[in-house]
């Protein structure tokens, strides 16, 4: 890794840490990373630009976001017996729900975007 990537990563970790602290002491209702996200967003808005190294680190994380889900998802093996017993219900619930969610979100956007079609 180039050394130039380090400052961006440190900044992200600092905001993550800050988020955890705020979550622990002030806002236990919100998970730490979400508070970190909001604080970083506020900082970027005040700063009016994204530091170049943070930009590089953030886009690397976004591009391989999928990798980061693997360890948690492998937990499927632990719940296998329970999942197998209710396999049909779970499969249909997840499938039906995701299809409906995509369809409803897309339809709402399509309908409202027409009413607000100031920008094509």
């Amino acid at each position, binding site marked *: 890794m180039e050394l130039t990537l380090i400052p961006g990563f440190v900044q992200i970790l600092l905001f993550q840490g800050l988020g955890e602290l705020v979550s622990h002491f002030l806002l236990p209702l919100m*998970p730490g*990373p979400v508070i970190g996200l909001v604080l970083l967003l506020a900082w970027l808005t005040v700063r009016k630009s994204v530091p170049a190294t943070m930009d590089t680190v953030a886009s690397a994380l*976004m591009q391989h976001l999928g990798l980061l889900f693997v360890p948690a998802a*492998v937990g499927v093996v632990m719940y296998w017996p329970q999942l197998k017993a209710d396999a*049909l219900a779970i499969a249909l619930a*997840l499938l*039906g729900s*995701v299809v409906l969610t995509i369809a409803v979100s897309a339809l709402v956007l399509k309908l*409202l975007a027409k009413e607000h079609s100031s920008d094509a």
Partner: protein
Amino acid sequence: MTRDVPAIHEIWVYLAGSPLLALILTLGAYQCGVMLYERANRHPLANPVAIAVLLVAATITIIDMPYAKYFEGAQFVHFLLGSATVALAVPIYKGLAVVRGRIVPLTAALLAGGTTSIVSAVVIARLLGADDAIIGGLYAKSVTAPIAMGIAERIHVSPTLTAVFAVTTGVLGAVLARYVLDLVGSRAWWQRGFALGVASHGIGVSRAFSVNPEAGTYASIAMGLHGVLGAVLIPLVVPHLRL
């Protein structure tokens, strides 16, 4: 030959005892997933995360490694989910200028999509007789995994089960989005990306970025907003739904 056997065995014990094996397994499986995805011309059915999860799950079952042991090593990868969530602020910030004129349709779509995701999943699962533990895991499944796991703890359901459902939802959305979006006649990249981000968070964002940058930006905005709103609203609303 027989003299080699204890040596190999010792190496094996050493590897299995350090985080190295879990990390090699996780990253190697993901690498395989990405290679197959590229070879399949980024076909949605060849989802790299699904391939990686299946490979790792099969491997740890075959070598008889308990999940807790695997996770002990793989937690270094898992930890970065938190950092990635914070880093979401960057695409959201960049998208904000574009988004401002579209705040009404985007907020409406997010609220409608988020509600649909919970209600439809819980209703279908209940009708088909799933038990309460399973249904509990469905509440936060459309929120990005690290936030979903936080929400799960707050509403007293299993974080692991929630994460499993969240990732499955992510993969299903990434695989099916193209067909569903074509079916409902959604054409604009920003609308397609946003709808995918609402439904299937991080894995949807990965998929959206690999198809079109504008779709990716809107998907990450949807994922971030869904995470923030979900973290606030789901713990407030769900206890009342359960009466």
